[in-house]
């Protein structure tokens, strides 16, 4: 026997989008357009930060410099997503990985160009800057051949 759902009243809809300020780390997004990935380095304590920051969480100095990453890294962990959020429905199923880069920082990004069954913890990858077909700046890991 099919269960009849209880009566409900539909609320008025609400749509939220946010304009996220990027001025303090705009160099990062500009760098991607030039095919480069930058991180911030604290001039006071030397800490390298990814994601990039305008203010150092370690020593609270706001004196930062931009350093270009080599992109060379090693996969620490990964997952593969067949059940995607609504705003990602138009994409093929994707693999997300976290890799530690040679410089010591970790990055979370998509891993492309390798089958899930061939993906392993410890695999060497390269982090590359990318602009999506829709024009969005991003970055991703690709396997080192």
């Amino acid at each position, binding site marked *: 026997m099919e269960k009849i*759902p*209880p009566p*409900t009243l539909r*609320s008025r809809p609400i749509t939220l989008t946010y304009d*996220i300020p990027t001025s303090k780390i705009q160099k990062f997004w500009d760098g991607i357009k030039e095919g480069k990935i930058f991180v911030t380095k604290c001039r006071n304590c030397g800490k390298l930060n*990814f*994601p990039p920051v305008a203010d150092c969480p370690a020593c609270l100095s706001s004196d930062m410099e931009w350093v270009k990453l080599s992109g060379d890294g090693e996969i*620490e*962990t*990964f*997952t*593969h*997503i*067949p*059940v*995607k*959020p*609504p*705003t*990602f429905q138009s*994409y093929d199923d*994707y693999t*997300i990985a*976290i890799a530690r880069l040679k410089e010591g*920082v*970790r*990055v*979370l*990004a*998509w891993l492309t160009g390798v089958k*899930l069954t061939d993906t392993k*913890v*410890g695999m060497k990858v390269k982090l590359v800057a990318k602009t999506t077909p829709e024009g*969005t700046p*991003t*970055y991703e890991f690709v396997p080192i051949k």
Partner: protein
Amino acid sequence: MRKVAVIGVGNAKFGVRQDVNLAELTFEAVKPAFEDASITGKDVEFVALGSVGAWYEESLPVVVVSEYCGLSGAGLVRCEAACASGSSALATAYLDIASGHDDIAMAIGVEKMREVDTSTILELIGRAGYYLWEFHNFGMTFPAYYALHATAHMAKYGTTEEDLARVSVKNHKYANMNPIAHFHREITVKDALESPVIAWPLKLYDCCPVTDGAAAVVLASEKKVKELKVDTPVWIESVASSSGTANLTNRENYVGLTAAVRASKRAFKDAGVNPSDVEVATVHDCFTIAEIMAYEDIGFCKKGEGAKLIREGQTEIGGKIPVNVDGGLKAKGHPIGATGCSMIYELTKQLREEANPRQRQVPLKKYIALAHNVGGTGHYCYVTILRR
């Protein structure tokens, strides 16, 4: 700090509860808690509500549910610690009494998640990390955050997909016995392994459901316990909390939750007990890997030996340390703001030897219980130790 006791608990039936709204669902937990404590709403001086919201229509839930439950006039605060919001409400109410500020306070947890569809939930909880660096370009889902931990744990310690499935089988078994649980269905390891992949290596049966639910806890000072002649007060020995970074990339590792390790150490120190003293525990099994990591982070076993504990059945009733014998988040359900208070409901019942049904009662000698409640992916962790 003054001693604080749990003197009343209530728990609404968990599940898809589109037969009630936010306030009505909360009432189902609050009224039994009042009755259990032999008090009325007028006796309550302070209310802390754990609720995350966004999936229900109200913006000021603590005001709405307090009016409906006859609590208007009490001091009110809404607490947010993601999936540990209920524990953050408990900690807030606990401190209100321990500090000497009030003599009777309530911690209430409620979440009404089924008023929106599952894909909206994925969109909202996928952002429960650091939006710009994890969701915006990469579409992290909540299962994905824990899947990253599962992959790392499997690679480092040889934990298998079967081990993860065993957690689900155990928790479904106990939920099937628990009248307030969302799911009343036993499953097999094979069912779990053959269920669809949600975020590899996690499958459908590795994931907790999206649940509506509420739970309420009445707390009192020692003075009030004597005045009300409470016969079986359950004392809060410690409530400890810690946190982890918003970005997963800034964590120490992916094989455990540092916030849980730190909160556990502090909770044991403050209570003056050891992990081996705990006789029953509720741990945060939003995903099966989370329960295995919890065994290790709390100290029920050594790091990397969590899978061995589940394989040997040591976390079932009759084992070394029974865990989540109410069905856990996995099968009792996880109405995220309610979970922390629901853990205290279960442990209070266990410590009073009132587990329903009797087959779910854990045998006790020391009468010490522990609740481990994680918010986000180790963004927050609360560990509470209770003793009768």
